[in-house]
Structure formats: structure tokens, C-alpha cells
């Protein structure tokens, strides 16, 4: 497995946000993590990145990451698209991409062709190309999400962590994001995708994990899931009250 997470436990002060979370994502696979607000989805991604302290094990292609600082995790090739995008709003589009490219130039990885990477990334998100000199805070919501993904892709990640990339976006934009995910999957990136909008991403998912109160309750293939729609109701609450 490209990314494997075992027995993660994380705490905020005295309250436990993750309980024995275990997940694995293979190269070219999309694993969707679903759950209600506050279930621990974002915390799982932050724990993988090393942004929150967590007990347990995180491995990237077999290499143990749990003792590393966040910046070291990123340099090994884990791309992170945080919830709410968290662009460097004062920095221009080009500068945001440059931050990603700098992480790619880390020692220990093959030396990159930055211009080529940037061109490839912009080819995935054509609307960004004419906006390179613009402060990223002035982009539209959809463009900001594209930039957040583009910034992460600049470090040519072997694992991509996406935290609610469709949050607040129009349907046409969601379709664009979905296409990019499909393309990345085809390129062999291991993708851990956090979502609340089931219908938006189900078409690109290979497997689905449900998290509740910081605990992984169920991991099923997409086919199985289609046959058992009551799982949605139980863990995400779609259907009756929505």
C-alpha cells in the first residue's frame, strides 16, 4: 500500500478525536472518508501530515513517518489540500505554486524540472494560467480550490490528501474537480478524499470508509455500498432528514 495508517489515536486536550484509526490506500486508488461534522475526518488527514500529534503508525510506501515533522512529511511527497483551502491569500497565484515547487526540491527525491511541473499542473487547471500574477485571495471560490489542488500537485505527490474539495462549489466546478481526481488516479496517485457530499465523489471512489466519533466503522467497496444504501443513513445521515 502506498499509504497505510494504523492505530492512530489523537487528542485535543483531554478529548479524544481519533480512536485506533486504521486505513490503507494503494497507488492509483481513491479512498473516500465519509462522516458527520466533527467525526474526525480532518483530524485524520492532519495526523497523517504530522500537523497534529498522534500515536500509532503512518507509513508511506513502507517508510515510517510518525516521528517526522510536518515539513518533512510534505517533502517526502504527501500533498495536502486542507479544508477551507488555506491559500496564502496575500501571495500571488504563482507564489502559491512556488511554495509547492520548493517542497518538491527537497533532498532525497529526484531533482525536478520545475517549469515542466508547473506547466503540467496548469494544464489540469487552465483557468489559473492567466491569473498567475494575481493575489490568490482575489480568486473566485472555484479558482481558489483549483489553486489549492494545484499547489499540492506541484510537489508531485505520491499521496494526495483532499479535505472536502467540493465544499461550497457550483456543480460545474465539482465536475472539474472530479475529472482531475480521475486523471490523478490514472497517473497512480494514492488519494485519500474526505467528503460530505456523497453524490459528488462517489463516481470516482474505489472504496469508502465511514468514520464516526473518531472511529472507523466500516470500509466497503463502492459496489458493496450501492447494494447497502442504509450505510449512508447510519453514518452520514443522508436520506430521511436531508
Amino acid at each position, binding site marked *: 500500500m502506498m499509504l497505510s495508517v494504523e492505530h492512530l489515536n489523537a487528542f485535543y486536550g483531554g478529548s479524544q478525536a481519533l480512536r485506533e484509526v486504521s486505513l490503507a490506500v494503494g497507488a492509483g486508488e481513491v479512498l473516500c472518508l465519509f462522516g458527520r461534522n466533527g467525526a474526525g475526518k480532518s483530524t485524520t488527514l492532519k495526523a497523517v*501530515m*504530522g*500537523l497534529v500529534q498522534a500515536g500509532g503508525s503512518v507509513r508511506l510506501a513502507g517508510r515510517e513517518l510518525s516521528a517526522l*515533522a*510536518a*515539513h518533512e512529511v*510534505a*517533502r517526502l511527497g504527501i500533498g*495536502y489540500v*486542507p479544508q477551507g483551502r*488555506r491559500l*496564502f*491569500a*496575500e*501571495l500571488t497565484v504563482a*507564489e502559491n505554486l*512556488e*511554495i*509547492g515547487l*520548493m*517542497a518538491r526540491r*527537497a533532498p532525497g527525491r529526484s531533482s525536478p524540472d520545475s517549469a515542466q511541473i508547473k506547466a503540467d499542473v496548469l494544464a489540469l487547471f487552465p483557468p489559473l494560467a492567466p491569473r498567475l500574477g494575481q493575489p490568490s*485571495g482575489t480568486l473566485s471560490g472555484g479558482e481558489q480550490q483549483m489553486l489549492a489542488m494545484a*499547489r499540492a500537485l506541484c*510537489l508531485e505527490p505520491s499521496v494526495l490528501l483532499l479535505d472536502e474539495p467540493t465544499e461550497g462549489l457550483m456543480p460545474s466546478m465539482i465536475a472539474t474537480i472530479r475529472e482531475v481526481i480521475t486523471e490523478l488516479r490514472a497517473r497512480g496517485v494514492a488519494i485519500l478524499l474526505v467528503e460530505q457530499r456523497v453524490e459528488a465523489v462517489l463516481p470516482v471512489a474505489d472504496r469508502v470508509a465511514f468514520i464516526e466519533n473518531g472511529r472507523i466503522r466500516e470500509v466497503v467497496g463502492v459496489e458493496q455500498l450501492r447494494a447497502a444504501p442504509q450505510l449512508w443513513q447510519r453514518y452520514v445521515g443522508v436520506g430521511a432528514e436531508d
Partner: protein
Amino acid sequence: MNFAPFLFLASLEGLVQAAVLCLTAVGLSLVFGVMRVVNVAHGEFFMLGAVLAWWLASLTPGHAAFGFALALVIAPALVGAVALAADRLILKRLDYRPEATIVATIGLLYVIQQTALLTFGPDARPVEAPFYFRVQFPWFGYSGHKLLVVAAAAAVLLAAWYVIAKTRIGLVMRATRFDRDTARAFGINVHRVYAAVFAVGAMFAAVGAVLVVPVRQAHYLMGLDPLLLSFIVVIIGGLGSIRGTVVAAILIGFSDGLISVFFSPTLAKMASTLLVALVLVFKPQGLFAVQSR
């Protein structure tokens, strides 16, 4: 009586004040902006720069310019090293928590001040100006050294602007300032950035001190004034805004020079303090507010 020469002289004095204040305040502003650390010991880095300049100059035989040039390079480097040690040994261990670092830098203030007292003694120490060249204006001659102070400060600030705005190092600093966690998630070693910024911030104060010490003398208690004025300037300019800091430093330094020449230095300090109070009441975020997460 002709008024113009007085005004001109007062402007020159104001310019010198503003130049030194710019350097000192930009150091404080940089540290606050990037690290969110209120460095109460900042004035002591200024004092340390001046005292070390005296010490280095007194060790150097020959023309005063040699001693001064040596001090201009070595004193800021030594001050930077002290700041680096303070970062590693104190601030980093406190995880840069804002409240904790205020208390810790108050402690650092006294440690540096008393160490300077014990090592260099309580006397004010003069440092000879590197040269006695006077620039002749129509009405009076003016210290060439003071004009050098202004030029050197401008050069340092210009270089700082270039690094921050145009280089990768500056990009890393700006990203860290804006959002430390996201910076970490993109491969930026935030603790290393902090260490560098804290050292550079202290070095700004030290450079300012070395530049003015030939006209002010070095003394172990001299850190208080630059600390207060820097705080005033940083608050007026907008916390963490370098541009605002420079504008406010010029404003305060200049008005301080003018009022000091025409009225009294005490009145000048009162005016600056009043200005801070007004800014805090009417525009609490300062003249140039900056955004961050």
C-alpha cells in the same frame, strides 16, 4: 532671524532619528509579524550592539574608521548569535506561545542588561566617529557621519525589502507569517524560519545602534528608549506591517527631531505617545493593517 536654517537643521536631525528608528522598529516588526512574538528584549539587542561596538572599536588600533567598520560587521553578527541562542534555548522551548514569550523576553531583557553592566561597567562609553568630514550647507556645516547613518539605514532597508519581496527566502517568510500550519504542510521548516527571523530582527537593532553610537555613546541602560519608540512605531504602523513600520518610523522620527529642536525632547516624546493613544482609539489595527489567518 532667519527661520529656514533652523527648519533645515531640525529636518536633518529628524532624518537621522527616523533612519535609526526605522532599522530598530523594522526588526521588532519582523519578529512580531512572522513569529507573533512580542520581543520585550529588543532594545537590549540595540544596547548590546552599541556596547559591543565600543568594545570592538577600543580593541582596534589605528584610524577610528577601522574600528567602526569592524564594529559594523562584527557587533551585529555577535548580537545575531545571542538572539539565535535565545531562540533555541528559550523561545523554541516555549513553543513560541505569545504570553509565555512576553514573560521570557522580559527576563531576557534583564539578563542582557545586567550582563552588560557586569562586563562593561556603568559608564557611558564614547565611540569615535569614523571620520570628521563635514558637509557644508549654506548656513552651517553638518556631520558627515550623520548623513552616512541615513544612507546606510536606507541601504539596509532597501536590501531587506528586496529579500522579502523578491527572493525565495522572503517568500518562505511571507508564507510562514501568513499561515504557519499550512507553511509546515508545504515543506517549510517553520522553526528554522523563526530562528533566522529572530536573529535578523536583533541584527537590525544592532546595526542601528552601531551606526548611531558615535553620536550617542554606549551605555547599559540605553535600550529603553529604542524599545519604547519601536513599540510606538510598530503600533502606529500596524502590527506586523513592514511598510507601515517604515512610514510610522519616518513620521515619528521626523516629528521627534523637529519638536526636539524647536521645543524640547520631552515634548517630542509626549507628542509621540499621544499619537499612539489616538491611533489606538481611532484605528486600533494601525495605519497599515495586515491580514493573516
